[in-house]
């Protein structure tokens, strides 16, 4: 019964989003204010309906209702309860439902954020947002209905893919979708501005909290996905330049560029047309990402389910939104007034360079991801574009970008003084150089790129700290003389300044983590109980190999004891092979031992009948910094969101309503 209620709610959401899409446009023509306001209850209603639909599907999964096709295909009575819940979005239909749920959540938030946005802009934004909701709910109802029944109902379900039975599935997709879909609001704002034909600093200020929120969640989502892949796949890599990873990286890069260009627009009323274009591109890339993952275009065999009608439908959505918005842009953009002149050497100039390199990096990932496909379609030639290509092209674009980060921060708006900025950065330069040289000397003969990367990361972290210090100290006559004054001033700095510094420092932390992987070591051997395998400064001794039983799996576990080379006890590590009888699948469960921010990573290979095992032991120095840095970046976004400027003009009430797994420290 509840399943039918959910199904009905989904259809009702379709109708409500149509109302929400049409009313404001109609109101704009007739000048009827009450009609325009109808978009607000419609947005709230659509969200409530989708929440009900999602709740109904969750209930069906939680209670293992095997009369529902979706539950049969993805659940099992013996599956742990957490995975019954996260399994709701561990499949095509459910994940699309989560997608539209978040879409309508953002729509509802814009609707209740009353004071933030001029009424016409808000109404138009809600209309655009509702159009997206309408099309995607239509997609779900026509091609991917999660509520279809099966009769007679089987006794047992097929279980969820064991690789997805992990805590990662509980957090990664919701975070990623909050990011992906969050950019729909920015997109809707951009389209609304184009329809309205007016765009100014008020627009930039209204958009910025949404961009920040989406960006922070996307950052966390990508980082979480990367960490999940790292420990789940069993070979210790953390980024594979896989098309699906690239699909999430592209909107992130474009979103980062958007975040920076909105700053220029808000402060200086410049780069307006460009910002609107970036807003369109960012969400278009999100849609493209959804298309790539959902259609099976690039992933022929491995998506959840490949169904040509779905692919064609999503392609139509893509053409409608990307083509439509770019056409609208080409038509209306020339009417937007350009403003805000600035000298090339200025904060604006640096932010333009940031945009240039980010867009170039995004274009590189875009072309690299789609090129093999197009080449094969056009000429029949098959080539592969893999990690070595991206490392060769992406890194040279990223390094100059990172080098100008602290530099841009030190430049004044409108007209900056490059020499003075360089002077302010002297300490950061010198310290980073010292770090690099010292590391090079200490690890002489090791990889040369690692110390360079380390120095770059240190430069970013120190540069961010210096920025706060020099702003707190002040200049000229008002320069503070004692630490107490400086500290007081630092505390009083706008939160956005702290947010910026944190986010930039986070990038530095990520760079340090990545650079340190140059010193990662790998040990590989077949060992018997009592024998040891060394990797880096650690030695793992195999104590025994034994069976272990979980709720819905049987595991062969290798119990290892980890010691330093000097023989000091570090701790136990367990790695195993889990066999899931329901799906007849075996999954490697890697064993991780965290020492500070470094990890020792054990992965079990073949188990030889005599009791010997194949074992791979990695030592990954500072590896956790890669993901912790991303958390610091997202934290920076969250701190920036609490800035007074945003609290005054932005949806403070609405932000409190974000789901519980929102960014910490908000």
């Amino acid at each position, binding site marked *: 019964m509840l399943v039918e209620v959910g199904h009905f709610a989904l259809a009702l959401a379709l109708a409500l989003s149509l109302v929400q899409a049409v009313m404001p446009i109609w109101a704009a023509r007739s000048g009827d204010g009450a009609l325009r306001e109808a978009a607000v209850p419609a947005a709230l209603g659509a969200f409530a309906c989708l929440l009900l639909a999602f709740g109904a599907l969750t209930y069906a999964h939680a209670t293992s209702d095997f009369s529902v096709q979706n539950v049969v295909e993805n659940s099992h009575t013996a599956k742990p309860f957490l995975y019954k819940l996260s399994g709701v979005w561990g499949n095509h239909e459910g994940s699309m439902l989560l997608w539209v749920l978040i879409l309508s959540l953002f729509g509802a938030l814009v609707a209740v954020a009353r004071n933030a946005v001029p009424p016409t802009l808000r109404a138009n934004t809600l209309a655009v947002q509702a159009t997206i909701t309408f099309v995607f709910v239509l997609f779900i109802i026509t091609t991917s209905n999660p509520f279809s029944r099966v009769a007679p109902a089987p006794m047992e379900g097929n279980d969820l*893919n064991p*690789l*997805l039975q992990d805590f*990662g599935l509980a957090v*990664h*997709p919701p975070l990623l979708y909050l990011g992906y879909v969050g950019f729909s609001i920015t997109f809707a704002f951009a389209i609304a501005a184009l329809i309205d034909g007016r765009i100014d600093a008020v627009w930039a200020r209204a958009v910025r909290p949404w961009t920040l929120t989406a960006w922070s969640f996307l950052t966390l989502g990508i980082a979480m*996905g*990367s960490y999940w*892949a790292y420990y*789940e*796949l*069993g*070979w210790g*890599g953390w980024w*594979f*330049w*896989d*098309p*699906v*990873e690239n*699909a*999430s990286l592209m909107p992130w890069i474009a979103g980062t560029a958007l975040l920076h260009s909105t700053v220029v627009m808000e402060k200086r009323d410049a780069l307006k047309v460009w910002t609107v274009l970036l807003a369109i591109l960012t969400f278009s890339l999100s849609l493209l990402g959804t298309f790539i*993952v959902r259609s099976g275009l690039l992933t022929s*065999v*491995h*998506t*959840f389910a490949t169904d040509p009608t779905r692919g064609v439908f999503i392609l139509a959505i893509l053409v409608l939104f990307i083509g439509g918005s770019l056409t609208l842009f080409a038509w209306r953009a020339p009417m937007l007034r350009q403003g805000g002149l600035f000298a*090339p050497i200025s904060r604006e100039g640096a932010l*333009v360079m940031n945009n*240039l390199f980010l*867009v*170039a990096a995004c*274009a*590189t990932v875009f*072309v*690299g991801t789609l*090129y093999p496909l197009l*080449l094969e379609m056009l*000429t029949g030639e*098959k*080539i*592969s*574009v*893999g*990690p*070595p*290509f991206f490392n060769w*092209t*992406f890194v*040279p*674009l990223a390094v100059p970008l990172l080098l100008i980060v602290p530099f841009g921060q030190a430049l004044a708006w409108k007209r900056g003084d490059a020499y003075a900025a360089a002077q302010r950065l002297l300490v950061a330069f010198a310290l980073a150089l010292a770090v690099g040289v010292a590391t090079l000397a200490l690890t002489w003969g090791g990889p040369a790129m690692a110390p360079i990367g380390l120095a770059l990361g240190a430069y970013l972290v120190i540069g961010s700290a210096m920025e706060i210090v020099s702003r707190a100290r002040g200049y000229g006559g008002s320069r503070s003389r004692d630490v107490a004054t400086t500290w007081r001033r630092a505390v009083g700095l706008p939160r956005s300044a702290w947010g910026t510094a944190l986010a930039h420092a986070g990038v530095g932390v990520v760079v340090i983590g990545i650079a340190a992987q140059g010193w990662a070591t790998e040990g*590989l051997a*077949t060992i018997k109980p009592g024998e040891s395998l060394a990797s880096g400064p650690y030695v793992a001794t195999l104590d025994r190999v034994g069976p272990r039983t979980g709720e819905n799996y049987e595991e062969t576990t290798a119990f290892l004891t980890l010691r330093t080379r000097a023989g000091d006890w570090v701790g136990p590590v367990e790695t195993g*092979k889990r066999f899931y009888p329901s799906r007849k*699948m*075996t999954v*490697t469960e890697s064993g991780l031992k965290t020492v500070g921010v470094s990890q020792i990573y054990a992965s079990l*290979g073949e*188990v030889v009948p005599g009791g010997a095992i194949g074992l*791979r032991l990695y030592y990954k120095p500072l590896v956790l910094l890669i993901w912790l840095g991303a958390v610091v970046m997202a934290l920076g976004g969250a701190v920036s969101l609490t800035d007074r400027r945003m609290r005054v003009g932005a949806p403070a009430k609405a932000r409190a309503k974000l789901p519980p797994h929102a960014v910490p420290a908000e």
Partner: protein
Amino acid sequence: MTRLRALLAALTLCLAAGPALAVQPDEVMRDPAQERRAREISEGLRCLVCQNQSIDDSDAPLARDLRVLVRDRLREGDSNGQVVEYVVQRYGEFVLLRPVFGPHTWLLWLTPLLAVGLGGFGLWRLARRPVPPRPQGLSEAESAQVEALLHRK
């Protein structure tokens, strides 16, 4: 669902080959220098039956065959380039994870340069665009007019 596909890709391969590590202990070469070269080469070679995985990371039997092949060639004294050439001759350009630079990949390889170059050129043009002249000071007649307006009682 970024990782899902990669996870599933990995899963399919695990199934194909049974539970196993990528590089097997018995494949490792005695000479660590040669093994390092083998790894270097392997990282750039695609596992042909996988999704975007190098033969170094893959559990598929075909990847194992290729790893063994690479090591055999190295043992026979081939240089890194010769090994790669040998593999490409047998399996085609598709096997290279870093595509060669040729007419069919010019656009691919030049994308970063083109993007920065064209973007930079556009910016340069924009920066050179004549700046609207600063408003001149008021002429004497205009000043007099302002005075008159301000002090009109």
